[in-house]
């Protein structure tokens, strides 16, 4: 291969990135471990911690089961009714929760399910005395199903659409009824996807922070992530935070390993494209059943969005937009999101390119392979260290150097950049692989390198995926409350933090307006960030 100076520089830079990541995570872990030595770990696993662990696992299991049970009939209805008007909008709606900041979603869910919400008003009109409370396990489950049922349904729909078209004709020709088709055709396809989907949903629910923080409503319904936050922020009990953090790392590590070896990652594929022609689902019974599930899903997913929009519009938006506190929050949000997105995309691009350079060498030495492997692993092992754990480590590390709030922006930028890395990697890696296959040899044979290659070959070819990844990373960072919550103060009030404190001080109209603004910004960015994915996949 062409082991030019330029390639050596790329590899060195990627090594620096990897080293930086390891150092950042390692120092946080070391800080936690060093502190736990002082405290003595014996008395730490008290009742409280076990209760929190039990609740974490309980709510994650229930959320997973409910999300999947709901998603099966919904995905089946979407697959079976392939051409009703508005199907494409239904599919788009199902993709929407992905881009919504958890805090904004929580607000929308409270508008629908809360004490003053639509549901309770309806129930009261029916004569029910006792309103349903959204706070606690119930609210957490509703919120997790709101986020994960559409995700699971989309993954299942992709699986159902991969079934060969001949199967539908054969089953129609053989006269298989709705039940027989489910048993012999659909269920086998869904069953194969279940471990992957369930694992993913369980992982997301077990590490969920913002939703549990806002909807948990008390110590009875607290997960490990939230307990870490409370241990540091309210009780200032570092040993407990450390014990909880270790527990969290062990839990997520076990989950990640189990996922890696037990369940293949679910593929999205090209959904929403040309729907396969099916011959079942035409009978009035199945139309009625499918229609009922689709309406239910539409209401369940759509109403919170509608509620955010409606109550946001009622807020005094003009005053909010003019308010200095909002300006400051927007400024600090951007000041954090921009660098973190840039860092995330730059790191991902460098590491992907280096991985390819290393693996393209004809004679790969052991170090090369190890390095490439470490780069590949780093994007997923980031998930091992939840933001709150990283934040906790750095919180303890920086404490001796004075006011933690002074360093907070840098830590939050770094944490957000790391958290976005797996997603950015997913967007960039396939695009960069195709680009390299198309242009790599040609550029090398023409001797186009360095700045000129960037300017004339890489930027035009990769501009779209790079901007997509950037916009996605930006949305993630803008909507994030986790890292900010730990350090949040007057000096570091981002938009989600401002929203959270307005919710806490019962300034609901303000909160609704802010939620609408933040939700809109993040949704637009996410749509930009994922819009090209499908088109890209179809072209390839």
């Amino acid at each position, binding site marked *: 291969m062409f082991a030019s100076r330029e390639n050596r520089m790329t590899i060195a830079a990627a090594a620096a990135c990897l080293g930086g990541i390891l150092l950042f995570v390692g120092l946080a872990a070391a800080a936690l471990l060093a502190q736990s030595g002082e405290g003595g770990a014996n008395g730490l696993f008290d009742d409280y911690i076990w209760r929190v662990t039990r609740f974490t696992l309980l709510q994650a299991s229930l959320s997973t089961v409910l999300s999947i049970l709901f998603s099966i009939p919904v995905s089946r209805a979407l697959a079976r009714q392939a051409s009703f008007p508005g199907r494409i909008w239904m599919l788009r709606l199902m993709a929407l929760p992905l881009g919504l900041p958890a805090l904004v979603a929580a607000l929308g869910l409270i508008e629908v399910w809360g004490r003053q919400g639509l549901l309770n008003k309806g129930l009261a009109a029916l004569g029910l005395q006792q309103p349903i409370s959204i706070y606690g396990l119930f609210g957490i489950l509703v919120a997790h199903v709101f986020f994960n049922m559409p995700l699971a349904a989309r993954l299942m729909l992709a699986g159902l659409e991969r079934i*060969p*078209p*001949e*199967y539908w*004709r*054969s*089953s*129609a*020709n*053989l*006269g*298989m*009824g709705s*039940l*027989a088709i489910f*048993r*012999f*055709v659909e269920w*086998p396809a869904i069953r194969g996807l279940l471990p992957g989907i369930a694992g993913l949903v369980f992982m997301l629910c077990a590490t969920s922070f913002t939703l549990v923080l806002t909807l948990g409503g008390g110590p009875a319904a607290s997960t490990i992530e939230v307990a870490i936050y409370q241990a540091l922020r309210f009780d200032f009990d570092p040993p407990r935070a450390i014990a909880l953090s270790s527990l969290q790392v062990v839990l997520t590590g076990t989950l990640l390993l189990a996922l890696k070896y037990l369940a293949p990652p679910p593929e999205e594929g090209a959904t929403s494209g040309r729907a396969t*022609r099916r*011959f079942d689902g035409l009978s009035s019974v199945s139309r009625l059943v499918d229609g009922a599930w689709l309406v239910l899903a539409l209401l369940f997913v759509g109403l919170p969005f509608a509620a955010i929009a409606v109550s946001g519009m009622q807020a005094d938006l003009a005053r909010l937009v003019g308010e200095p506190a909002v300006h400051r929050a927007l400024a600090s949000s951007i000041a954090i999101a921009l660098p973190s997105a840039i860092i995330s995309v730059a790191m991902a691009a460098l590491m992907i390119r280096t991985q390819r350079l290393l693996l393209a060498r004809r004679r790969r030495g052991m170090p090369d392979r190890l390095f490439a492997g470490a780069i590949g692993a780093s994007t997923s092992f980031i998930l091992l260290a939840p933001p709150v754990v990283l934040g906790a480590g750095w919180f303890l590390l920086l404490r001796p150097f004075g006011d933690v709030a002074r360093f907070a922006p840098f830590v939050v930028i770094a944490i957000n950049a790391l958290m976005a890395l797996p997603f950015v990697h997913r967007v960039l890696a396939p695009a960069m692989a195709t680009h390299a296959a198309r242009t790599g040899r040609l550029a090398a044979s023409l001797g186009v390198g360095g700045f000129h290659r960037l300017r004339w070959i890489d930027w035009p070819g990769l501009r779209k995926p790079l901007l997509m990844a950037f916009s996605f990373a930006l949305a993630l960072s803008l909507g994030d409350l986790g890292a900010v919550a730990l350090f949040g103060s007057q000096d570091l009030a981002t938009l989600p933090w401002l929203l959270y404190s307005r919710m806490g001080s019962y300034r609901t109209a303000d909160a609704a307006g802010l939620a609408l603004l933040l939700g809109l910004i993040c949704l637009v960015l996410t749509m930009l960030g994922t819009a090209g994915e499908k088109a890209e996949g179809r072209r390839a």
Partner: protein
Amino acid sequence: MSSVALSLKDVKVRFETNALTFDCAVPAGQIVAVIGPSGSGKSTLFNVIAGFETPEAGKVEVLGEDMAGRMPADRPVSVIFQENNLFAHLDVATNVGLGISPSLSLAPSDRERIEEALARVGLAGFGKRLPPRLSGGERQRVALARTLVRHRPLLLLDEPFAALDPGMRAEMRALLSDLHAEEGNTILLITHHPDDVRRLADSVLFLDQGRIVAHDALDRFLARRDLDAVNRFLGNEEIR
């Protein structure tokens, strides 16, 4: 029993860019080769007969019965495609069993029928195997076994041998010909191979640009030189 197995009268199917019209009458008990260039409408013809596609106008009759408004399963028709005829996650016997009862409520006597049908296609004892472990030819034999237990008078074969090597094709042709002699059913066979036409067909339906342009007995068809598309298909240019 009517002597006409299949009749299409002025059947029209319209797509975004083209419109197809089918007119023909196929006598019962024949093997009819359906041939023509790609995109000439062969598969659409099958979809109309099997009920996967609803024509805008015209009349489709199988054994004298009007097919209008009848679901695919209610038609006296069995279909075999080029591939994916078997549900890959169900074993061979179950796949055949679906031909007896689409909800798989099978009596012990049905199990015997399945085993018997498998024996007739040369796959005795294959019942417990899964389709991915079979060769392409074996999978098509299982699909044939399923049509045997279904006993539908009209069998549509959409390039059933296209994915097989020449030796396997010859075997499958022989099997199909034997089964046809035993069953006395009517078979329509889409193929791209002149060999299949010469060895199997009693008559030929030739399609070009969405129309049936010729429907001849085999000898007459092979002797034809007046249609360019037919000449191209049979390679007659080189002969001349």
